[in-house]
């Protein structure tokens, strides 16, 4: 059972205090958008073996949404960060690069490559 630190209240919460919210950093497409873009926004999701970015809500807690960078194979947590961002903070990306050189996920990747 996972533990993730809520970046808002500093609590290392266990999975039963959290609610999983799927993939992070989705870009919303609304009226006027192309059919393919809208389809991808609604339905297409990453399913990586390795580095992944997810949304979680501290549901039985402060109620805030946050993001977690996690390895889907080892369950290592590289870091959690506030949800009010369009991309992972540099600090998180650096941590991932240190542990998983050459990583990439959607448009994000190891900047040293």
């Amino acid at each position: 059972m996972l533990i993730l630190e809520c970046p808002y209240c500093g609590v290392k919460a266990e999975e039963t205090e959290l609610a999983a919210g799927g993939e992070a950093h989705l870009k919303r497409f609304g009226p006027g958008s192309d059919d393919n873009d809208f389809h991808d926004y609604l339905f297409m999701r990453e399913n990586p073996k390795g580095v992944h970015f997810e949304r979680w809500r501290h549901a039985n807690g402060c109620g805030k949404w946050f993001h977690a960078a996690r390895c889907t194979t080892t369950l290592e947590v590289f870091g959690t960060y506030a949800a009010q961002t369009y991309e992972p903070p540099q600090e998180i990306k650096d941590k991932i690069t240190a542990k998983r050189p050459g990583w990439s996920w959607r448009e994000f990747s190891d900047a040293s490559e």
Partner: protein
Amino acid sequence: MSTRLAKQGRLIDRSKQIEFTFNGKRMQGYGGDSLASALLANDQMMMGRSFKYHRPRGVVASGSEEPNALMQLGTGDRYEPNQRATTTELFSGLTAASQNHWPSLEFDVLAINNKLSRFLTAGFYYKMFIHPRPLWKHVYEPIIRKSAGLGAAPDSELKDADTYEHFYFFADVVVIGGGVAGLQAAKAAAASGAKVLVLEQNNHWGGRAPVDGGTIDGDTPEVWVEKTLTELRAMDNVTLRDRCMGSGVYDHGYALGYERLTDHAPGQGGPRHRLWRIRAKQIITATGAIERPLSFAGNDVPGVMLAASMRDYVVNWGVTPGQKVVVATNNDDAYRTALTLHDAGVEVVRVVDARDTGGGALMEMVRDKGIRVELGRAIAKVKDGPRVTKVAICAQNGEGGAQEEVEADAVAMSGGWSPVVHLWSHCGGKLTWDKDHAFFRPDPTRPPLGDNGAGFVVAAGSANGNLGLGAALEDAAAAGAQAAEAAGFPAKSVAASKGVAEDETLMQPVWLMPAKADIKLRMKTWLDYQNDVKVSDVQLAAREGYESVEHTKRYTTLGMATDQGKLSNINGLAILADSLGAEIPQVGTTTFRPPYHPISMGAIGGEARGEIFQPVRKTPIYDWNDANGADWEPVGQWRRPFAYTRSGESRHDAVNREVKNTRENLGLLDASTLGKLIVKGPDAGKFLDMMYTNMMSTLKIGKCRYGLMCSENGFLSDDGVVARIDEDTWLCHTTTGGAESIHGHMEEWLQTEWWDWKVYVANVTEQYAQIAVVGPKARKVLEKLNAQAGGGMDLSKEALPFMEWREGQIGGFDARAFRISFSGELSYEIAVAASEGQAFWDALMEAGREFNVMPYGTETLHILRAEKGFIMIGDETDGTVIPQDLGLNWALSKKKEDYLGKRAQQRSHMADPDRWQLVGLETTDGSVLPDGAYALGNGINANGQKNMIGRVTSTYYSATLDRGIAMGLVKHGPKRMGEVIEFPGTDGKTYTAKIVDPVFYDKEGEKQNV
């Protein structure tokens, strides 16, 4: 015979006699006995029959690895099947019964299976019972279930008399196993200042060491254990728990401890089991090792036991399983058993050592006692009657010929040891094959990984493959320091205690005894006792093409019993590897899954039973409703009255009465469960315009508007009335089930998409008791309350028109009144503080008496809305329905550029004119359509099923109209008014209904607007 010895028995208290029964027979044991040791003391060697062949079986081990001695314990509401006699502490009045036999343990009809065992080979069920198919369910399955099985299930009418609980605990280092290695590791870890929890599954500490002997720091292991426990108990940062098994290791340092509080003292009060839900920074598995059986013919005959377990019975409980014992081994440890038996006055007939060169110092000690040791020899077979009567001895390196028979009544066997790697492996710890000792041991370079990506489990002592006393203690001290360090506590150097025991020479792997045993012998050579898997079965599986160990496991059921193959896994693997011509590490192990040992369902459920099985959400009117005939209906976790039945009245009668009375007089509905969300801020209007399909930003203060919410993929998800409170505040009503989810939905969009919008949401659902006052006399009752209180809110049509709200006092209560109607009648929904909800309800009931007031339930609510053609989320919608399907286009703002779901509703399938659309349905004969019935179209689809053109979404008997009314979704429905379509029912009848307008009652809406 097995019997109590005059001396020995370090765990028993001979001054404490305990009476118990086995299969109805009264027996005596001593305080400190296990059920198994007490049975042996009473010469009860046979303790059960096997799963498949119903072979008589005796106890083979002394701990949780026991596969045979499964018991049905207790009676009535404390009855439990499949409990191991070896892990059951004896108590006064214990009632035990053996299982899986009929009519008795001694004579079993289905032991005929044993004679048929040639035919009941691996995969027999799969091969035999596949044809003819129809016979499976009614013939084969019931017979198999009766013949192959474990204990009887408890009486389904009885409830477990015991209670259970959970306990959350956090530690820096958790040590699983309270043997000498565990205690040494705990000592080393605790010295660093780390918070340490030690779990021991037994009620005694020290593990095997006190039985096996040797010295630790010059003391006997028993003395050292006591000294160390005293030291640890004195430390504030150490918690010791016995009778508490570490049962599983999970992700990110989560572990479960299974504490058995009253199993040894039932009825003493308090919870029976406590499940420790532990979060550890580091876990040390000091879980010891399990001895392996030897594979020879008749190795399952009662009286054949693991050598070290036999030693346990002598030393711990003063019981000998036999009077003339043959010891068979491939390693030095079993010689300890020979010595122990000899010292206890039991005759050791032979030590049969499969190694040509025999053992070391221990062997010499045995020879010095005058015991005959034979090297390079094997047991060819054990003869039964049904216990061990004779043992045939042959050369190990042969087929089993040239046998010498000796008389014996027990056999002690040792095939070597396997470290208990289960807890290391539960969460992904990898293993490495140790060729010298022929066992898998934890690979310290590939431990289970924690949230920081580093290992969080350290194995210690014999669980780490260090079997000798000295090596185990050294390893454990290092493990303790390593774990403390990894948990963030720089280790203080603690010297390992010095363990001294006899040197042992290397074991020699022996997977079959004799090495080339012929098929007749192999068919009587058991690998998995509990599931009756033999050497020949695994070999057959290999011949049939099963190469993967996981497949072989399932095909043969090797290791699938309740002991999960604790004894059988390595022996089975070795046979499979040999059959496949592969090395054991290449074949690999099956997956170790928690729990290590079965734990009770009660412990898993914890406190969640009876009244607190689930949270039941109660409105402030709950108790009144309950006392006044509420026929409860669960709505999510809420309980709402379906109807209020009066004495002598059926549910149906009650509903009809409530419907009529509400239309004609006055009805009250406890609507407190409706969600109420305050949305406030400079951007609240803009935000609500995105949340709802309607325009909410333009709503005037004091007014209400019905709104629809869709998910981003266009489907209707919730509805409710929105009230504008002030310039930047709205109050949104949601459905009963929607309060939390819609609150979450709003927060999600605010926090993750429009985080720069200034909007706050607060869920005030439970702040208010909300009561719908409905019917032609609604205004009268409220005005009466105001008159009684000497004033209050003006409730006239002019002062509070339809779809508006006001705040003020009603009958002396601070209240908010909404002129909204879900029934089509004159209706006020009135919110008062929840703490005053009951008082307000009482006042309404009292004042309403002259108007013939009656409370009504959810069914009446449904009928009233259906008569008006109002949709209900969850009836007309099912997550695939869009507002356009329901004729709700009027609620979709054309002015707004965007709202959640708008883009999706433009997708081609959403705009398809062939989508099923909402209509009313009127049966041609006035009957009530079956709920969920489908309407038949012409032709068949690609799957050969009849084409469907619609379905019923809501259907009721309308007391107002005295006929069945229904709503449904029908293809091209609104264009087919007047057409009659057919709905086949599940009752064999076909219902015919005319497509009509969904508004059945007061089409002009005059009644609600008075």
